[in-house]
Every structure is written in C-alpha cells, then in structure tokens.
C-alpha cells in the first residue's frame, strides 16, 4: 500500500493497478485515479513551480480549477503542455513531466527570482528596461536584449513541433434540453426532462457522472449519494432520447443557444480505436439549457497559503472519499464558513487526525461545535492562520487570535504541527456560462458571492450554480428545471430524503488575513495581496485595470480561485463594497480547449481540393500543378530537364506556330435564364447583351457599384432567354453572389434565374494556326469553317460520340476555340482532341504559357483588375455603353476615378534583355541605394517567344502618355534594376488578324 492510500474507501478499482511515470520516476495507481490522486497516494507533495517566483507548489484543488499542478503529457514526440494533473486520468504507460523548472522540480534555479522580492512587484517591468537614450542600446535594443532572457524565463510548458497524429472531430448536435453538470441537480434535471420525452444531452467535464455526490459522503434516498447517482445514470442510459457525454466540458455559450463542448474521447486510453478521435468538438444547438454547474470553493489569503500541503477543504474531502487518498495524516482546517466542518469529519472518517479547526468567526454554531467534537478536533474560533511552515511540504502553521469585525490579530502566536492545512473561503457559483450568454453577474452579500444574472438566453439554473448549496435544494431545483425546460408542468414528486451534515451556506466576509509574509491571491501568477494594494496605490483600481496591471486572474485557471478574493482586497482598499469594484465578464472558453479540437475535422484538411474533369489526365501526363484558389491547374507540362521558363516558352511558341490546348474548366460558368435575362445582362455588364444574336458570344465587363472594374468574361447566348455567362476563375463565386443580390434585393421584378454550372461543363481551349484543322478532323455534326463558325460564333456537334458546344473565341490571340462538353465526358473529349491534334503538332499548355500569350496580347486578369482600377485605367472604356445605365455607370466618372495621374495599364520591354519580376516597380530615375518615387509596378511578366524579349504588363502613373518613353525597373527586393521601354499593352498582333484569321 502506498503511503497515503487509505485501506478502504474511494471509488477506484483497487484490483486494477496502472503503471505510469512522472518526471521519469515509475509510479502505480488504480483505475479511477487521476494523476493528482495517484501521485498524492504515492506521497508526492511537490507538483509544480509558480510562474514568476518559481515557488514550490502542491495540489490546491482536485478538479478543473487546479492552478499549481500543471504537467506536460507526452505521447511519443507529441507534447500536451499545461494540463492540470487533477484532470489527467491515468492509463498504463502514461508519461507525464513537470514544467517550468530547471533542472528539476525539486531544485529549480528559477527560484532565485524569489530573492527579487519587492523589486519584482506588480507591473515592475513597465518601470524599467527602457535602456539608454543614446548609444548602441538606444531605441528598442536594450529592451529586446532583456526581453530575450525574460521570455525564456517566462512561459509554462513547452509545446512540441512534431505534428500531432491524432484525429479531431466535430459533431453537430440538436436537443431540446442540454444539461450542463451531472451533480444531483443536473442528474435530476436530465431525468425530469427525459421523462417528459424531451431530447436530452447531459454533459459533465468529469469522467464520472455524479458531481459532488461522488464524494460528499451524504445519503440520498437511504443510499450513499454516489450509489444514488449511479442509479440515476443507469436510468438515463436506458433512454433513447438521452445522450450522455462524460469527460465533456461545455466551454462556450454562444448566440442562439449554441453551446460549444469538448469531449475528451480517448485521452484516458492508451491508444484510440481505429478511426476514433482523440477529442470531439460538440456544437450543440439547444432548445433550453439547464445550468447545473455547481460552485468552486475559494481559498483564503494569508501568509504562506501557497505552501505544498495547503489545499482547499473540499478537495481533500474528495481525495479521501472519491480516490481513497489522504492528503495528510495530521490535518488542520482554516475556514470562514461551515462547509469545512463537513470536510473535517469526512477526513476523520477516512482515517486522518484532525488537529484543529481554525475559524475566523468567534460565534460558531452549536451544530458546528458538535461536528468538531465528532471529528475529535480542537476548535479555534475567532482565530486565524498567520503563517505556514515547512519547505517543499507543510510541517506546521501558526495561529493567532483574530477579530473578524476589525481584521485585527492579537494575542500570542501559537504553532500547530500539521502536514496538511485545508482552507475554505466560502463558495462561488460557477456562473461562467451564464455570464458568457450575455448578462452581468449579481453580487449576493449574504452568500458573499456573485450569483447568476437573469437569463438573456434560454437557460434555467439549478443547484449550487444558483447559490443553493445543499443537496436537497439541488435535487428539488434540478427536477423543477428539467421539467420546465422540457415544457412539462410542475407536479408533486416524492420528497427525496437527503441526510447531510448541517451548515449555514453564508460565510463570514473575510477573505484575507493581513500578517507578515507573502499572501497569494493568484497562485499560478504569484499575485499577492500586496500587489493588489500596490495596484490600488497606483490608481489601477477598476477590476480590469487590476487584472491587467497585476495579471491577477490571467493564469490558466482564469481566476476561478482568485477572482473574488482579489476583488475583496481591492474593495477593502477602496473602502467600497465589492460590486462597485465590479466583476469581469466571463468569455469563452470556460476552461482551455485544444486548438486541434477546434480545427476538428479540418485538422490536416483545411480546404477541399477542387479538381477539373481532366485533373487525373494532367497528373498522368506530367503536368506540374499549382493551386489557384481551391482549384488545381496545370502550370506547365515540363519535359525532362526543362526549366519552367523553357517549358512555357516551348508551349507558347508551339501554340502560336501550330496549336495548343489548355484546360479552361475552372472558368466560372453561370446559366442566366428567363424572359428578362437579356435585360438583366444589360444592367450587369457595361456593354450591351440584348443585341447579341442567339448562337453568338460577346466579351463583357462588369463594374462594382462604386464604378471600379469588377470582372470580365465572355457570355454566350444559347437561346432567346438563355445565356451562359463565364467569369474569371477567381471571381466565380463573387459574381454569382453579385447577380443573386441584384435579382433578389434590387430588381425582384426581373424574371431571371441564375445557376452555377461551372461543374457541369468541361472546357478545353484549343488555339493556334492549326486549331481549326484539328477540330475539323474530329468534330462531327457541324462544320467549323469560317462561315459556320465565325469569330464569337457557337456551334453544337460531337467529338468521339459526345455532344459538344464550341465557341470560337480567343484569349491567346490565335485562332482559337473553346470546346465544352458534359464534365463526365471531359477527359474523353480532351483525349480525342489530343489524338486528333497529333498530326498537327498540338501541345498541351499550362497556365504559364496561357499567361505568356495573354501578356503578349495585353489582356487583363485579376492582377490588373485588382479592385483599384477602372475600365479607363485598363483601356476598356470602349466597353462602357453610353446608351444605357449599368451597375457602376453613375459612379465611374467621379473626380478621383478620372484623374490623369492614375495608374494605367502599359506594356514594358526590358531593354537589358534580362527577366523582369512581378511586383517590380517602375521609376524615372534609378537610385539603387535609396529607391524612391515609384511610378507603378509590374503586374505580370514573361519571356515572350513571339517578341523574343522579356516583357511585362504594368500599372504606371499616367501610363498612356508615357508610351515610347524610357524608364527603369526598380526591384530592390530582388536586386533587379535596369532600363525598360514603356509601350502599349498590345504587344502582339494588335489588330487581331491572327484570331480573326
């Protein structure tokens, strides 16, 4: 038997022994143990080091609020830092290590900070480290020098860089009633709601349902409370309409009664089953929420209250009753309220000696006096603990007479030997979720606690959450809440009989004992009562200033232990009641949640891949792909040994000399249908579409409402009331929403429907002098000669037995055709075109060659239509119809949009015959050392096989007037400087003779 494990008792499985290590030392525990209880059972008292002073710390709590005992759990290379040992269920092979200590927990060099003492007071860093105003350490340098060391000293656990192999998942859930917390109140609420037929979810952050019933030692309905809870759970398990979620922390209460919860599915297992997630993120949309989240016991603030061995009273009770572990053999208690007496008795029953109960109150009730004598303890009423003794474990404490009206200490100090001191500063309801839901907590002077506000969303409170601390009240309120949440009528129920220790729920309003020595308010962050008073002295008196100046409540426990004591000390300093100091609003999360769980199913799969119908063909045929938004598109089809430039030059050259084919399936395609389709397009595009003949296509330009260019593309008239609009790949979704907005909101009278048909069609653009011959060789059912298929004409036919639609339009500047077929036939048609093209030296080309040919032609794309350019800037003013208003027409002529010095589209030729870079700038005077006075920038560039030169498109101030002038490219980022000539953007075949053929 380990040193502190009681012979009997607890809800652990003593037949199952579990082996684990902590800081490389092997230990054993039992199934049902947490890391905290198992280590405690093994006699471990030192669990962690504090943040600032690196003081030795033991367990303060037994649950989620533990601020001291933080460990890192290792799974191979994968690290999980900052986990409270109280929340780690042990499993065989568990490896846990302590944190924030060098070299070891017992001997930590960082403890030297304690010598800094009063220099390292709250906010000291704001007052120093500024460094000299002159010299090599001026400016920010001295601070950054100091910061280097400060950063390494700060921080808790160490995160890993090894990728987490775990799976995370999301689950969307809907229910009538979500019950948060499975203590007596929550269990009763769940049962009452389930009995009404409601869909119920019951969630509890602990591994086992039951809450305080698991360790209270009370009797409910004649059976031990823990058994009563188990019976209730069994009943719920049998219901189809109930989902039970143990190990599930409801951490966020969002708008619309949407709650976020984290289920730790396999953290307690050696390994997950196949496909089983480590954690599951529940997004729960609840009709009504029952908040039965219980309450936290508060520490008291007195000198030495952080010494290992000083613990919350209920935590010790829980270690004894739930885990069969005694946190000490000789236990003293220090309290301002009645609940500690019950704890004393429980520990006595578990086998410890209770050496004293120190109560700040002088008038202790007879009931409590009776409990004291049952515990065979000495009662020191009207006393306070003023110091603790010991090193890394408690050896004793000092008490003195205390006047709780004045706070004054008097009389002789008395020493008491004890290896464990339990404290109770009263209880704070766990109102975090209610506060997150959007309302301010209310201070209750009797309970000396913030109670939940009036609901602003659909929730009902029950039990200790509402300030009703007795189990009998919890059961009654839980049942009523469950009924109400399920819409059931209140009905008389057999009274549940609870046998519990008596006690007044109201504590004395004492939070701090002022005596010599460091008294901790925030344990993890080492914020002392003196720090709070210093903040007061310096004017940081509002609760938010207090928090921010001292870091009180900013530790991993988020103030669960420190909030109320901190406020109380500030309130006293200010001479104001606590509610006037304020309480901070709680925000999500209630407890820290893993980032992986929030990424959930998108961990390792951030965005879907969007693939064209010919994707697999491209891969199989050597295409190098790159992503364009979510799409993957071929960049080049490189031959062995080719550079990217060699490949695209070859592809572009071959296209202009014979023919090339490119996958254009990614272009946005929108079916615009209905009697008013033509009228609608006239309003949407700057140019006319109502005049377009059926069977013809037209290039169109759209503006935004503010008059700037938005998107361009061709639109095909397939029927009197049927158009196929194409958009740029990047803007497909935006254009669709733009059209839908105008049809729904602005012009609902128009009979037009728009549908995304991007995925319906596979598109292949085939261009070059031999393109028509290739089509003629494989298209059946239609001729493709100039008469049948003129420029911007559309025909229907078949290729390899598949219906196709062919439009003669050109982006490359060559005689070119876009061939559309049903997406399921895309590869079939593509392969047929390739086959037909073999005798004609057809090449496949990728986006690089596509870009090269468009630069040669001076066509614009997203690099030029960048949301800041106008039609005029891009020399597209010929498309602005004067015959009709269109979206953007009223705004496009405002002074700023027609100014002469705007950036305008031009072409550039590198006069030094060296490559240009996208994003290079243009200057009139070259100054490599101090570049200045940029005229504009390169939007796209390439080597032009057609011109035999390095060329670019650029946006240049007053660019049109600069045609024929010389300037310089100035690209300090890539150290590329050199002369250029500014020319028209139409480099190649400006009159379009090749495409008109």
């Amino acid at each position: 038997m380990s040193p502190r494990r009681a012979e009997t008792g607890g809800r652990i499985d003593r037949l199952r022994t579990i082996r684990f290590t902590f800081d490389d030392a092997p230990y054993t525990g039992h199934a049902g143990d947490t890391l905290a209880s198992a280590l405690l059972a093994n006699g471990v008292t030192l669990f962690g080091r504090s943040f600032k002073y690196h003081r030795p710390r033991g367990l303060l709590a037994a649950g989620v609020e533990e601020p001291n005992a933080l460990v890192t759990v290792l799974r191979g290379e994968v690290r999980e830092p900052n986990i409270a040992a109280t929340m780690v269920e042990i499993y065989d092979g568990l490896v846990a290590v302590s944190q924030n200590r060098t070299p070891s927990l017992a001997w930590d060099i960082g403890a030297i900070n304690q010598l800094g003492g009063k220099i390292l007071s709250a906010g000291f860093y704001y007052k120093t480290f500024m460094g000299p105003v002159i010299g090599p350490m001026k400016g920010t340098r001295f601070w950054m020098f100091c910061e280097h060391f400060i950063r390494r000293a700060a921080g808790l656990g160490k995160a890993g860089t090894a990728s987490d192999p775990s799976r995370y998942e999301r689950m969307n859930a809907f229910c009538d009633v979500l019950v948060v917390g499975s203590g007596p109140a929550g269990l009763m609420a769940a049962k009452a709601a389930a009995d009404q037929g409601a869909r119920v979810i019951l969630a509890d952050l602990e591994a086992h349902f039951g809450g305080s019933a698991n360790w209270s030692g009370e009797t409910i309905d004649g059976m031990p409370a823990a058994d009563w809870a188990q019976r209730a759970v069994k009943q719920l398990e049998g219901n189809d309409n109930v989902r039970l979620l143990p190990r599930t922390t409801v951490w966020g209460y969002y708008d619309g009664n949407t709650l976020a919860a984290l289920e730790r599915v396999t953290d307690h297992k050696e390994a997950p089953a196949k496909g089983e997630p480590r954690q599951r993120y529940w997004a729960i949309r609840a009709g009504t929420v029952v908040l039965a989240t219980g309450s936290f016991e508060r520490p008291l603030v007195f000198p030495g209250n952080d010494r290992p061995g000083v613990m919350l009273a209920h935590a010790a009770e829980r270690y004894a009753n739930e885990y069969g572990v005694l946190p000490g053999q000789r236990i003293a208690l220090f309290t301002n309220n009645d609940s500690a007496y019950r704890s004393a008795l429980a520990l006595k029953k578990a086998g410890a000696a209770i050496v004293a109960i120190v109560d700040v109150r002088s008038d202790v009730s007879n009931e409590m006096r009776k409990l004291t004598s049952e515990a065979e303890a000495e009662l020191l009423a009207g006393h306070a603990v003023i110091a603790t003794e010991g090193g890394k474990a408690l050896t004793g404490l000092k008490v003195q007479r205390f006047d709780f009206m004045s706070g004054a200490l008097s009389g002789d100090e008395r020493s008491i030997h004890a290896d464990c001191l339990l404290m109770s500063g009263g209880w704070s309801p766990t109102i975090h979720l209610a506060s997150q839901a959007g309302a301010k907590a209310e201070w209750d002077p009797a309970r000396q606690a913030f109670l939940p506000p009036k609901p602003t969303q659909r929730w009902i409170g029950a039990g200790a959450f509402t300030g009703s601390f007795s189990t009998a009240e919890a059961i009654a309120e839980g049942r009523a809440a469950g009924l109400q949440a399920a819409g059931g009528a209140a009905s008389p129920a057999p009274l549940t009989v609870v046998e519990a220790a008596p006690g007044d729920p109201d504590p004395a309003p004492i939070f701090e004992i002022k005596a010599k020595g460091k008294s901790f308010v925030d344990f993890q962050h080492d914020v002392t009562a003196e720090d709070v008073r210093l903040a007061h002295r310096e004017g940081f008196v509002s609760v938010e200033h207090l928090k921010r100046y001292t870091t009180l409540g900013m530790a991993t426990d988020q103030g669960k232990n420190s909030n109320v004591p901190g406020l109380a000390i500030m309130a006293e300093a200010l001479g104001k009641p606590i509610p006037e100091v304020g309480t901070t609003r709680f925000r999500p999360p209630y407890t820290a949640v893993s980032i992986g769980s929030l990424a959930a199913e998108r961990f390792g799969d951030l965005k879907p891949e969007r693939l064209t119908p010919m994707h697999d063909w491209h891969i199989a045929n050597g295409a190098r792909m790159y992503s364009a938004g979510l799409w993957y598109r071929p960049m080049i089809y490189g031959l062995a040994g080719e550079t990217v430039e060699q490949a695209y030059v070859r592809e572009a050259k071959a296209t202009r000399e014979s023919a090339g084919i490119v996958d254009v399936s990614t272009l946005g395609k929108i079916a615009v249908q209905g009697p008013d389709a033509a009228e609608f397009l006239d309003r949407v595009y700057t140019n006319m579409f109502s005049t377009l003949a059926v069977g013809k296509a037209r290039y169109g330009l759209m503006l935004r409402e503010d008059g700037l260019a938005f998107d361009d593309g061709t639109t095909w008239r397939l029927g009197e009331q049927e158009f196929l609009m194409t958009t740029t790949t990047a803007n497909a979704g935006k254009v669709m929403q733009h059209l839908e907005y105008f049809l729904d909101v602005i012009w609902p009278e128009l009979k037009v429907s728009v549908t995304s048909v991007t995925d319906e069609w596979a598109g292949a653009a085939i261009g070059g002098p031999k393109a028509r011959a290739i089509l003629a060789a494989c298209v059946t059912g239609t001729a493709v000669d100039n008469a049948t298929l003129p420029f911007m004409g559309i025909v229907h036919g078949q290729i390899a037995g598949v219906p196709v639609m062919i439009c003669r339009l050109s982006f490359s500047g060559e005689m070119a055709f876009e061939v559309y077929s049903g997406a399921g036939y895309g590869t079939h048609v593509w392969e047929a075109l390739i086959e037909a093209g073999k005798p004609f030296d057809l090449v496949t080309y990728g986006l690089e060659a596509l870009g090269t040919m468009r630069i040669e032609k001076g066509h614009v794309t997203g690099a030029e239509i960048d949301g800041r350019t106008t039609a005029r800037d891009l020399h597209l003013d010929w498309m602005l119809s004067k015959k009709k208003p269109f979206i953007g027409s009223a705004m496009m002529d405002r002074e700023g949009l027609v100014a002469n010095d705007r950036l305008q589209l031009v072409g550039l030729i590198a006069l030094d015959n060296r490559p240009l870079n996208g994003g290079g700038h243009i200057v009139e005077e070259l100054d490599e050392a101090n570049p200045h006075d940029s005229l504009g920038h390169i939007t796209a560039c390439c080597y032009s096989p057609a011109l035999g030169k390095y060329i670019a498109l650029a946006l240049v101030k007053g660019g049109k007037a600069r045609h024929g002038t010389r300037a310089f490219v100035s690209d300090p980022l890539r150290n590329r400087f050199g002369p250029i000539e500014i020319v028209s953007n139409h480099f190649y075949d400006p009159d379009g003779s090749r495409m008109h053929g």
Partner: protein
Amino acid sequence: MAEYSAFSLLKNALTGNKDWKPAWRKPDPKASYDVIVIGGGGHGLSTAYYLAKEHGITNVAVLEKGWLGSGNVGRNTTAVRSNYLLPQNTRFYEHSMKLWENLSHDLNYNVMFSQRGCLNLAHTPAQLDDYARRGNAMRHLGVDADLMSVDQIKRLVPALDISGSARFPVLGGLMQRRAGSARHDAVAWGYARGADRRGVDIIENCEVTGFLRDGGRITGVSTTRGEIRAKKVALAVAGSTGRVMQLAGISHMPIESHVLQAFVSESLKPIIDTILTFGMGHFYISQSDKGGLVYGGDLDGYNSYAQRGSLPIVDEVMSEMVALFPGLARVRMLRSWGGLCDMTMDGSPIITTGPLPGMYLNCGWCYGGFKATPASGWCFAHTIAKDEPHEFNAPFTLDRFYRGLVIDDKGQGATPRLH
C-alpha cells in the same frame, strides 16, 4: 531623475513599495477646457499627450465613459508594422513606427516594443508577386522590407509546416524586420501618465451624452458628470463612432461597427519569435513575453456592438493555425475576446477637421488601430492645434469616398467586412 527606472524600483522596494504615486490623477472635470478629447483609449490619450508635448496645449480633458483603455487598445493582438501597399498608408504607419521606436523613452514607460519582425507568408507565385509589389512599394518610401526564402523561413520559425505537402505550401514571405509587438495596456497607461504629468485631466467614468452647440458650432459636451465646455471637441472613439456621431445629429457615416475576435493560448516556452500571417486565409500569430500565443483572424462579418464573438470564426482561426503549425494541435486556447472595429468603406482611417464646426474626427481604424496609436495622436493633435491636417493624415479625409479618392489597400470596395 526619471520617475521610473531600475533605481527607483530598488528604492521603492526598500520602502515596501509604499511611495508609488498613482499613474494618473483622478480629477473632477473643470467647467471648460481648450480641448476636449472624447475617448480615453490609445488614440485619445496619445492625442492629449501630443497636444501637450508638441503644441503646448495642456488645458485638455480626456473623457472616458468607462475605465481608461477599455476599448481596442486593450483588446488587440499588439502588432506594430508599417507594411502597407498604398503610399498614403505606408507613410502614415511609418511615421508611427518611428514614434514607436522611441516611445518607451519618450513616455518613461516601458511599452515593451519588441521589433521581432512581421512575416507575411506567400503560398502561390501570384501572391509572392503581390508581396513583392508591396515590399518594393515600401522600399521606395524608405521603409524596410525583404523577401524571405522557404529555407530562411524554416530557420526563423522551425515550428512552421513548410513541407511541400501542405495544402497551401509556403513559397516565401515578405518580412518587415522593424515590425514587432508591444504591451498593449502599457501604451494606454504610458500615454495617460505622460499626458497627466503634463497637466491633462483624464476623467474616467464620464460618458458623453450629448453635444453643446452655439448655432452650428460644437462648444462642448454634456456628460454623466455634467456639462463641459471647450473651444474644440475632438472625437477618438473608434468602435463607437457611429453612436457618438448620432449624438451630434449625424446619422450616417461611411463606417460599420464590426466585431474582431482575438485569442490567447496558455503560456508556453518561446516557440514563435516573430509575427506571422497566413496568406491563404486571414490568420496572424505572435507570442507574448509571458508565453501566450496571441492570434486572430477575420472579422465576424456583421454589424455588432456586442463584443461577443461567434463560433464559426473561432473554428476558422484555429483551423488555419494548425494548418500552419500542426504541432500546436494540443496547445490550448485559454481566452478569447471581441473588440469593436470601426470598419470604413476602404479599410483606411479618417483623421480630419469637422465634419461640424468645432469638431475634429479621428475614427475608422478598422483593425489597424493599435499600431497607429502614436501617429494617430500625433497627427490628430496637429490637426486640432493647427486646424488643418498634417501631410501624413491629409489623405485620410471623410469626403474621399464620395470623391473617388479611396485608399483601398485590399481592393475590396465598399464592403467593410472584407477589409
């Protein structure tokens, strides 16, 4: 001798820290001032500070409805940078950067400005070109900028997944080395103390409930602490601009109020030594001196004054985070909060005289307000003192939208949620 120094810390430690003075006084408002600055956030406080320091105007009150610094100066991710695309923005933010670089000395308050750089990751060739355009634009204005290779990035941030197998592999990045982060609250407190020591009255818990007028001219404000008159009334209430302007009878502004969430992880030993942004989404991250990872992403995307975040953005931000750092999946998000952003129609701010006589307006900080704090106050003080803008803020007029002179760094047009 400086009030704050290592020596003063030592001296005070010896006397039990009993002699520290309040960082700023808590005066009652006077009946009138030369200038009233509405808004005790970073911008309002720095405006008051520079009015006193640069223009000798010390008969100034800063009115704050709640506690000082309760707005966005205390609810941001503390990035300081001047890596903008458009010259109007770059010049202004670079002026701010220069003020930042000497701010701790200027204020005798350590604002912990740490110039550990800001790296924008690029994931496509086109994006790399975009960043090159931006970096070159900065260089042509004398601002530091460099492109980093994948190898350099890997050395700088070893925890980053730079493998080619990532959904959006990292191809390079744009680095501004002088960028960095600072301690946000310290900026508010430092300016408050600096202004206070120069005679400015900082009045907390004083909510403006209306404007006093003489004819069309604004002559003061009514507040929860009485009427206060002033020759000039300046607004620096970003996040609440719409609400306050409505008190002045101006019902519409080219502004929407949006919520921006931010997040902090539990404290960790150093793992990210720079500010990093993701190019295929909207995500940025740095690590505070205390060790918490500080990160955020996109706006929630709808008008709100609630400071309440929505869940989908939480999920989105975390998804992008672990896409970049798959090793951080087990690190835990500790805290989240929401700040109110004045989103303008082009994503750039407004610092101007007017729009009413006697009024001066500083607003529209979108989510770039923190880094602007020094220059915003500096330029606003100039504008108030001289009744005309400084050249740094001359482009940031209110009428630029209507005249087609927008400063649209992202090219998104009049859709505030996209800036």
